[in-house]
């Protein structure tokens, strides 16, 4: 069981017998008031979404998901194809099912595919992935945002903020839970 204080973006819970993933999460608490956990949930089978505010004493079941190691093969149109590396069975998931995970998928990457009632419904990525920077703008001095970062694009098309010393062609490590830059890697 999870309690409300375990809730965070990306966590999967079971509600009324169906698996849901938290796609937006915000902790709120008036200074003298109670803790409130504001969520937007997506049903991992139907894709339906709803928003709900939970309180500290709310409890959640863990969904009964089976994980299988599979390799990402290719994407075509809206379908992302994966292969079981032992049985060679192939399945696909849609872009909607994968959500932000598509930002970090490169060919041949091994991921965990999650099955609910023998149906593939989502994947679970490694926490850290290394991706190549395919486009980096020069850092604009005098940037007034008060931060020391610049935007780059990686090989999947995903854009993120990185320190100014990162150049095109570098490989960088990204935390797939937050989508944030971790470090530059040498390979």
């Amino acid at each position, binding site marked *: 069981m999870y309690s409300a*204080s375990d809730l965070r973006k990306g966590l999967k819970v079971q509600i009324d017998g169906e698996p849901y993933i938290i796609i937006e999460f*915000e*902790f*709120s*608490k*008036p*200074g*003298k*008031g*109670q*803790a*409130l956990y*504001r969520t937007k949930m997506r049903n991992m089978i139907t894709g339906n979404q709803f928003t709900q*505010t939970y309180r*500290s004493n709310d409890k959640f079941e863990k969904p009964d998901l089976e994980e299988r190691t599979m390799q990402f093969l290719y994407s075509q149109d809206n379908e992302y194809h994966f292969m079981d590396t032992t049985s060679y069975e192939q399945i696909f998931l849609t872009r909607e099912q994968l959500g932000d995970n598509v930002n970090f998928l490169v060919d041949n990457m091994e991921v965990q595919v999650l099955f609910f009632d023998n149906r593939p419904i989502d994947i679970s990525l490694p926490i850290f992935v290394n991706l190549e920077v395919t486009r980096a703008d020069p850092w604009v*001095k*005098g*940037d*007034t*945002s*008060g*931060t*020391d970062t610049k935007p780059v694009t990686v090989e999947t098309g995903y854009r993120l903020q990185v320190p100014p010393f990162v150049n095109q062609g570098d490989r960088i490590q990204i935390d797939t839970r937050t989508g944030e830059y971790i470090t530059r890697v040498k390979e």
Partner: protein
Amino acid sequence: MLPPRRLQQRSRLLQAVRSFFLSRQYLEVDTPLLLPELIPESRIIPYRCEERFLQTSPELCMKILLARGYPRLFQICHCFRRGETGRYHRSEFTMLEWYHAGWGYAELMAEAEELLQALASEKGFTALDRRGILQRHGHRISLQPPWERLTVDEAFRRHAGIPARAALADDRFDELLVTRVEPRLGWQHPVFLCDYPVEQGSLARCKEEDPQSVERFELYIAGMELANGFSELTDAGEQEDRFSGEIRAIRAAGRPAAMPRRFLDALDAMPETAGIALGFDRLLMLLSGADRIADVLAMDPESW
């Protein structure tokens, strides 16, 4: 020229706040963080540290000092509250708290206006323009006093479509406050929400003309709760009654709680006072244009 980075703005804010209060004959104090007793507040969970607690606010110690005859006090200190991590929350955060003997909450609201106006004329905060107008999420927020005073009941009727008392009876007060009321407050000028139901202010004095309300206010800027102030309750007997309810709620939740005797003993000697606690990190978020509290801290162990 590159604008000052956030840590430089933090240092500047610390100094500006200090000069504001020192120039007004406030005494800066630094009271203990590790305490054998806390003010019982059922909604705030302290960290236990062996047989003592880390303070959840400096209120207990500062009121004991007021009772000992120090009439104007301020403190900038760290406070610790378990389970509070979010865009606007950290389990360890910095509080600016000040007390002025002889005042009620009306005078303190006016002084909070003067503090923010003084900060608006400081140089070096990224989110202030040349005329001291605060820029936030595309809005221009003038800090020029006087700011609106809106009663809690009026705010609930206006933004949640229900009287505050009815929200409380429905057990939806906090939820409606957070989802319906707060997001609409303070986008042109800061706003004071004032006069809370007595259940929502266990350390505040009741209003003479309406004993079901207390003289408590909260300051909102750009939808964010920034400060909380009261005309302080100085009647030790009434304070003990109110604490009893809080202690029952804490014990019902399975946590230990005890009546803070040293605090209650001091309270009878405390003069009429108004006090306010302001989230220092949140103030810096506003002044430096940060979206997340994590971005204004020297470092953020809660994301390590």
